[in-house]
């Protein structure tokens, strides 16, 4: 059971028996008055978004979800396919359900798939993934100012800003929560 002080972006709760994720959260409190917790919530099954305002003392059931460890296989016109490496069961998620996670998905990667009553609805990535640089513009000569960056493309097609010394073919550690470069990984 959560209460209103647990509410934050990313928290998954049950409303009318269905799982919702908080996509936007605002705490407000007038001086000497009760706090209000304004939330935008996305239904994790239908993807519909709703607005709700909660007060101190309100209680919430966590979303009733199961997390299953799976391997990413491939994508095709139907979506993204995953396999349970113990049972060999296969499931798929649509492009909408995968969302931003597609930027970091590489074949054979181990991920967690979230199920609501046996239906796969969402993916949970590892915090850090390692991906290869497949295209990189050469660094601009003479620009040695600290903090200078350039754009590169990773093997998933994802583009991001990295320090100038990064070269094509190198492996980078990426934070999947922010989509940002963390460090270069030695082979």
């Amino acid at each position, binding site marked *: 059971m959560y209460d209103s*002080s647990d509410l934050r972006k990313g928290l998954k709760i049950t409303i009318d028996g269905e799982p919702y994720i908080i996509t936007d959260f*605002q*705490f*407000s*409190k*007038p*001086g*000497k*008055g*009760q*706090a*209000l917790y304004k939330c935008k919530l996305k239904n994790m099954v239908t993807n519909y978004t709703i607005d709700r*305002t909660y*007060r*101190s*003392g309100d209680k919430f059931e966590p979303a009733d979800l199961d997390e299953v460890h799976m391997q990413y296989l491939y994508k095709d016109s139907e979506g993204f396919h995953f396999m349970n490496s113990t049972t060999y069961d296969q499931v798929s998620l649509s492009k909408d359900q995968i969302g931003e996670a597609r930027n970091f998905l590489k074949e054979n990667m181990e991920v967690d798939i979230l199920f609501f009553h046996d239906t796969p609805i969402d993916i949970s990535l590892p915090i850090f993934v390692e991906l290869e640089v497949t295209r990189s513009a050469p660094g601009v000569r003479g620009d040695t100012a600290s*903090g200078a960056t350039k754009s590169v493309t990773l093997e998933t097609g994802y583009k991001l800003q990295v320090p100038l010394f990064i070269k094509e073919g190198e492996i980078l550690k990426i934070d999947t929560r922010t989509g940002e470069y963390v460090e270069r990984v030695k082979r």
Partner: protein
Amino acid sequence: MSSKEAWQRRLVIRGKIIEAIRAFLSRQGFIEVQTPLMTHAPAPESSIEAFPVSQGRDRPELFLITSPELNLKRLLAEGFDRIFQLGPVFRKGERGRHHLPEFTMLEWYRLGADYYSLMSDCEALIATVACAAGWKAHSVVYRGKEIDISSPFPRLTIKEAFEKYAGWTPGPDPDLDRFNEDMITKIEPNLSHDRPIFLMDYPASCASLSRLKPSDPTVAERVELYAGGIELANGFSELTDPREQGDRFRKEAQIRRAHGLNAYPWPEKFLSALERLPECAGMALGIDRLVMLLTDAPDIDKVVAFPPEEG
């Protein structure tokens, strides 16, 4: 400017603002005091939660102060006449774009004064610290909008504000859910953004430590200062009647019980000091929010060394 440079610049200006506040209050004859940050008995307010601090088995639990208010009034009762405290206070469960569970509060108190003096103090203080923060000619730009900070700031009573923006008139004891919700959704967003503004004369039930207005006891002599959509400061002509204060605390304690919140020990030391407390007024100003306003910061995390999640 990189986000790191912007953060460093804000921390430097924060230091200058605090230095300017101390100099300003000292010039006005205020003494800076430091009262304990841990207390046996926080004010029993229904909407503010104190962090408990364990002293170990067989010793009474303490609480981190949510404001130095009770301590400072005890000092006034002992003969001090102009004092201020500038330091951290702690409020459980308050976290948002304008809220930190640990934040920095300035509170100043004047003997023989009422809330009108506090409003003048605020006007002079804001002008002084805006200069220290690098702003010129009585003007500050916050989130792309210019704010004219020349004195006096406009004043609006709660009655006027609710009639104008919410379409109803709160009485002395309004439905608090409705009052608070309209305050957040209808009043605060519509307050003038090109001038700081004082909201004053709150319903009698919305200010448990404030004196009622002698000419209209349906309202309390409480004032709040807003600028750029940020609630900056709150102050009162202080209630100095120990019996009435005890009654109000009992009412607040009852609301706490009804909401299933823990009961705090009874603030006896404070209530007995009230017997000797002369007429006075005091204001509490959130330093982090003032720094937000004067460094054009979109949220409170941008003006502290480290947000609480990374402290």
